[in-house]
Each structure stands twice: as C-alpha cells, then as structure tokens.
C-alpha cells in the first residue's frame, strides 16, 4: 500500500510538472482567426471563410503580429474598428457580466439545493 501511495505521488508530480501552460500546435495567427467572426458570412469564423473580407482580416492580423502586437491587443484593435460583434469571446464587462456569471449561479444553486436536502435529512 505504501508503495502504491508513493507511485501515485510520483505520477501526480510528473504530470503537473510537465506542462502547466497551453501549448498550441496551430500558429498564433490561426488561433486568432478562429476567434473572429467573418462579418459578411453566415456564422463563419475568419479561419473558415473564403470571403474577401476574411482575406483582408487575415492580412491585418498577420501584419499586427509581425509588428509585435499580442493576441489581446489585436482583439481590442479589431473590436474598436468593427464593433464587439467581431470577437467570439465576449469581454467580461458590465453588460456581459450576466452571461459569464449566470451558468455558475445555476451550478451553485443546484448544488446548494441538493446539499441542503441531505443536511436536513441528517438532522
């Protein structure tokens, strides 16, 4: 049993030492294209679209990357220019707060109801 516990610990340590940060195979440009909406298409991302608009945005994004902008700056630049509609991940701000919070409210509420039931029963 002791042997198993040590083995268990070693493996846990190994796993969490290997990699704590995301390592994406696809280039940063493709990652950004996937998070942008093609404004002239029907529900397509820039990465998926064949439209001229998508081609233009791809050039803009690649330019920005070569100028040294990071992901966040590029999203901000594009939302200023085309509106928030272009980014697929809404910012966490006053207007969008309910979007981000309400799923967790449901999760916590559900958990609370189940927990409350069992505590009441135990008494």
């Amino acid at each position, binding site marked *: 049993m002791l042997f*198993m516990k040590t*083995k*268990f610990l070693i*493996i*846990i340590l*190994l*796993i*969490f030492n*290997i*990699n*704590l*940060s*995301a*390592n994406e*195979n*696809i280039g940063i440009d*493709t990652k950004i*294209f*996937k*998070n942008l*909406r093609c404004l002239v298409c*029907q*529900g*397509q*991302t820039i*990465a*998926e679209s*064949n439209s*001229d608009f998508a*081609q233009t945005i*791809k050039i803009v994004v690649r330019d920005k990357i070569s100028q040294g902008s990071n992901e966040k700056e590029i999203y901000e630049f594009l939302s200023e220019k085309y*509106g*928030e*509609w*272009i*980014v*697929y*991940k*809404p910012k966490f701000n006053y*207007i*969008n707060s*309910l*979007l*981000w919070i*309400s*799923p967790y409210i*449901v*999760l916590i509420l*559900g*958990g609370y109801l*189940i927990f409350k*039931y*069992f505590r009441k*029963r135990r008494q």
Partner: protein
Amino acid sequence: MLSNTGNILLIGSIVSTFLIIYFTYQSLKERSFQIKKNIIYWSFLQITFVIASFLLLIFAFVFSDFSLLAVYQNSHTAKPLFYKISGVWGNHEGSMLLWINIMVLFSYLFFVFNNKTNSAFSLYTLVVQNILILGFLIFLIFDSNPFFKILPTPIEGLGLNPILQDPALAIHPPLLYLGFVGSSIYFSAAVAAILSNSNGKNFALSIKKWVLISWSFQSLGIIVGSIWAYYELGWGGFWFWDPVENASLIPWFCMTALAHSVLVLEKRNYLYNWVLILSLITFISSVTGTFLVRSGILNSVHTFANDPSRGLYILIFLSLMIFSSFIIFFKRRINDQFNLNAISKETFILGNNWFMMFYLATVFVGTIYPIFTQVLYNTNISVGPPFYNQVIAPILIPFLIFMAVGPKIGWVKSKFITYKPFFIIIVLSLLINFLISYFLKSYNLISNLIVISSLFLILHSLKDFITNVKSNSYLNLASFFSHLGFGILILFIVLNHNFSEEFDLNIKVGQTKKIGNMEIKFNNLKIENRENYNAVIGDFNIQDFQRNYLKKLNPEIRVYENPQTLTFESAINSNLKQDIYLTMSNIDGSDFYNIKFQVKPFMLWIWLAAFLTASGGLVRVFLKK
C-alpha cells in the same frame, strides 16, 4: 389536381383531429373514461390522412409537379431522385408536414400501447396531444401550406440549395424530428398525468420508452448533422456552437436529464414534480429552438423563408403552450416527498441532472444573450466557441467521474466497499495520460484533467462490464454503451482539439510548398461535367517525410446552375489514426488558389464513440430481456 387532393387530405386530417378532441372530451366529461369505438376509428383515419398527405407530397417532388409552389421553389427535374425525395423536408412547408406526421405517429402509437392499462390517463394524453396537433395543422394549412398552387404552372423548378444535396443531410432532419418532435408525446403525457391524478410510477413507465427513443434519435440527428458540417462546410470542424446546434442541444440536455430521473420515479416513486417539469420543458425548448431558428431571429443556415407572420403565429402558440401547461402544473401540484440516502443511485442521478441543468443554462444563456444585449444596450456581441469551451470544459471533469461511479451504485442505500480497484483505475488513467502527453505532445492543465477523467470513465465502465460478465449478474448494456461511448467521445475530442494541425496558404498549379515536415504539390486542375453541376477538380500530392507517406487528394469546387451556387468540397483521407483534410477555393482575379490543409487525429473514433453513445437508448428499448 394534386394540390386539391393534398388540400382535401389536410382538411381530412384537421377534421379527424377535431373529432378526436371532441369525442375524447365527451368521454372525459362523462367521467366514464371509456375508450369509445369512434375515438379509435378517428385516430386511425387521422394517421391515414396525415401519412397520405405526406406520401402525396413525396410523389409531387419525385415527379416534379411544379404546379405546387413548394416543389417549384425547391426542386428541379435534373436533380437526382434521392435529393428530389429529401427536398420534401428541405424546406419550411414540407418540414412542417413531416413535423405533424411525427406528432401524429407518436400520438397514435402511445395511445395504442397505453389505452388498455390506464384509460383516463391515455384519454387525457390523446386530447392534449391532439390540441397541439390541431395548432400545428392550422399553422400548416393557413400559413405554410405545402400544397399551395401556382398558376400558370412553371416548366422548370428553381432547384434545391446544393449544400443540402447530400446523403447525410437528407436523413438529418427526419432523425432530429423523431427526437425533438417526438418529445411532444411526453409533454402531453405530463399534462395528462397531472389532470388525471395519475400515479408517478405508472407515468414513468408509460413515458420511459418514448424518452429513450426520442433521446437516441435526437443524438443521431445531431451526430449526422455534425458529420455533414465536417465534410461539407469545408471548415474542418464539426461543432461550431452555432445557434442552430445549440437549439438542438438544449432539448438534448433535457432529454438526457429526463432519461435518468425517470428511472428514479419508476423505481422509487420520487422526484415526480421534477420529472413533470423536465417533460414539459423538453418539448417547450424544442419549439422555442425551432421558433428562434426558423424566424431568423438567430441567423443560421436553417432560416428558410423569413416571414414575420409565421414567427408571430409560433410565438403565440408557444406562449399559450407554456402558460397553460405551467398553470396546470402549479394549480394541481403533486405533493411528492422523497427520502434519499447520500450514497445511492438516486443521488448520482440527481447529480447527472444537476450537471445537465448547468450545461443547459450555459448554452441557453450563450444563445440568447446576444438578443438581450441588442435590445437593452444596442450592442451586438458574438458568443462563440471560446466562451463555451471555457465555461463547460472544467465542469466536464467532475461530471465524467460521477458518470463512472454512478452506474455501479445500488438503489436505496449503498456503500463504497471497493477502494482498491478505484485507486488502481485512477493510477492507470494518470499513467496513460502521462504516456500520451510524454510521447505525443503535451497539453494544458484542463486538457490533462479531462483526459484523466475520461480515461477513468472508460476504464471504470470496462471494469464493471468485465466483473458483471464474470459473476453473471445483471448487466445494464444500455448504460454501459452510452457511458463508455461518452468517455471515448470526450477523450478523442480533447486529443483531437490539442493535436490538430492547420495550415492556410495560397498556391498555383504546378507549385510545391513546404510546411514543416510536409510537402504539398499542386499537380493539375481539370474540369468535369457531372449530373447537375460542373466540377473543378484539383489534384494534390501530400507527402510527409517524417511519417513517410504520400497521399493523393482531390478537393473540388462545384458550380451549380440551379440555383447558381458555388460549393467547396473537401477531400478527406481517413483512417483510424487521423484524417487528412484538404479544401481549395478560387481567389478572384488571380491564378492562385487558397487551400486549407489540416491533419486531424482520431476523427473516426469521435464518430464511432458518438454512435455508440446514441445506441444506448435504442438498446434499452429494443433489446430488453
């Protein structure tokens, strides 16, 4: 001529529906709860009329009778027979007729199966279901009539949207309809159970089959839709968190929750109110989804004719449905007490429902929030894959572990007796995950945890299966298939997500481009004349020096005449290890072609696992000993 016959059949359907409601109502008013001959007689006539009208519409599409507006707008003589038939439900009018067919079919079968055991309950179900059918029939006849005539008769039709001319998409709507339109029957049964003061256990027994059948078909419909999106849309993805997909996923979450909690009601007679609520919201969410998608409020490929009057009718009907069903529910609230032990199957099923409601809330809020911000703040936002991945992925971890342990726990009261196998499985899962990330490629913390917990689910299911077979004890094959399938599905989705490689480049005929260890060669381009389109076919060689293979791929650009459209067909080389995926598109005013080249590991496993998951429901219904 055909138009008149069709309209007569529809009127026949509406009259028989009305008479069923009338005779059933009388029987209920007399409190005799007798199933009179004329109810059975009119039910039979109703299903005959409805099916006949559907067959007639198929006939009109097959023989290209352009005197019907629906045929003229969605068909063409040069179209292959298979797509003439699938064109029947490839448009708003025809799909509404299919919708009604399924409602009537489920109503009829439910009535036939249940009227012997509990006549009051089945009469109430019949009356509620037929009120719904009547509502949709009125909508069909006055606002979306598939038998609407045009004069003079055109000689040629406008044709079906080419991206819909595809085998997967031909069967996708009927499968999905069997799912979410099928859920109408337990909506009606829930209202009927409240009105007839039916016992919870009987209610559970009567709806269980239908929940499982609709769940399986809903799952199959979603899978086939994804497969289609994968190879036809040419984006290489299979799930986009598009409003349409979300609209099919929300009822699926309800059905999944219901398929589990209905077992608690059946075995222990607990959770009656909760099962009733789930039964009601499944169909309500199905109709809501249809309304949002069809009306064009949420933009998508499923938006057919953008007609405000249609949207308004469905909206009024939907509001009435929600309002009246919930008034009935709250007025006649059934007092159900329950007495659960913390470690019991019941608790784990509650856990399933808890997670399902979280996923449902996430998808629901994500889908409607853009409407909300537009109306209130006049800002347009997009809620897409990054949002859903971030919110849903972490909560998959506890869910997968619950899913692994749940089936093993006994009803009423149980104990974790076996710690040892539990730990062995955890260690094994950690080890396999370690090997994958060590030898193939490392990925982030959340992916690590999801891979570990899905491996835990897979191994745990397999272990339970083996011990059950060895000891020859009761084996729940349905739950084994679905849980194992889901574990494999999540595992391969995460691996695929982390290991996919994508390249986007422009290339000319004769050119060779090098990307990493691979080389893409554009050999030549040829044009072919096919049945109802011209194809521009590219000939590519893909060579991988590291893994030492050479693949030939032929993506196409198809030029359709009726209606004039371009579609981009992907070329996919598929094996158990990976899919090699290539699409090409022309660039205006240039002899360069834009190509998207992707290497996507384990795609076949994802489809197989999804089918395995979906098979669970059908296994339970049809193979039960």
